[in-house]
């Protein structure tokens, strides 16, 4: 391959692989009957993916991360709309870092 084409080829490979992951999961589900059990699995799967995204971020991010997640989640649990809840969490974390620095 001509050297100047290699970066373009690399980007194309990355794009195709990523597109495959985006459409592949739903494509596989075409072959799985959507029984109540499978729906229960998918529902718990969704919450579990969120847990798996949040918890490691909290544990590796220190106090600021706990504050951001705790404040945002706590406000959301009290029916605060998502955006203010999220911004309050991030602001709390930023204040904590400013105070700690």
């Amino acid at each position, binding site marked *: 391959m001509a*050297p100047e084409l*290699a*970066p*373009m*080829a*690399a*980007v194309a*490979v*990355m*794009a195709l*692989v*990523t597109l495959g*992951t*985006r*459409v*592949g*999961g*739903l*494509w*596989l*589900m*075409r072959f799985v009957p*959507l029984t109540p*059990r499978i729906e*229960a*699995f*998918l529902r*718990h*799967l*969704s*919450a*579990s*993916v*969120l*847990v*798996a*995204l*949040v*918890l*490691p*971020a909290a*544990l*590796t991010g220190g106090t600021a991360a706990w504050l*951001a*997640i*705790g*404040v*945002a*989640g706590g406000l*959301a*649990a009290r029916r605060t709309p998502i955006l203010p*809840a*999220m911004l309050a*969490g*991030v*602001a709390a*974390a*930023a204040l904590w*870092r*400013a105070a700690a620095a």
Partner: protein
Amino acid sequence: MTTAGRYAGRPPMLVTPQGVLRGMREMLPLACFALPFGLAFGAAATERGLAPELATLMSLLVFAGASQFAALELWVEPLPLGALALVVLAVNARHLLLGAALAPWLLPLPPGQRHLVLAFLSDANWAHSRSAFERGARDAGLLLGGGLVMWAFWVAGTAAGGLLGSGLGDLRRFGLDLMMPAFFATMLVGQWRGRADLPPWVVAGAVALAGVWLLPPGWHVIAGGLAGGLAGLLLEARSRGA
């Protein structure tokens, strides 16, 4: 009513311009926070020797931040295409779960619409749309609109970062690195249905944390998601069977 028998009783899904606009509007605030990360990626890519045009093209076509940062680590001449493909697959394999989890709502769509809305799937618009679908939204344009606005800011940020350098210094200063975790936390709270949810969540959390140490980058999300999903399924099956 829907045509396919397996979806009998569900209102039909559709994709409308109004849904796309609503998705864009509702995800716009979060998309603004994709901008600094795009800047950071553009700057990092330029430092790594990528032309700004190439970095921008990558964001345009790949649109998956974590995998793009991971690819920079492998960006040495001659470019290892196989290794790049594997790393991108590993980091983005969680999309498979996200797409599968939307099956009850997206499978009834015609294939063209299904693939169009999935082409812009990312964590944030997935969480947003899924929660809206569960609350009764029937317009899959939400997913597309949310994805499009995240994509636009990610690409614009990359282009600016490649040309100007990041110029923001440390993203951590303003807590920007915690925007996504805070958003996912609010989405997670919305999923809570009662104490029966606690055991699967604990399983998901424990497996995800173990995966952070034991698995290649990104796979802890897959392991935690599958483990929590299975735990929830088994617990529900047991309580129904008892």
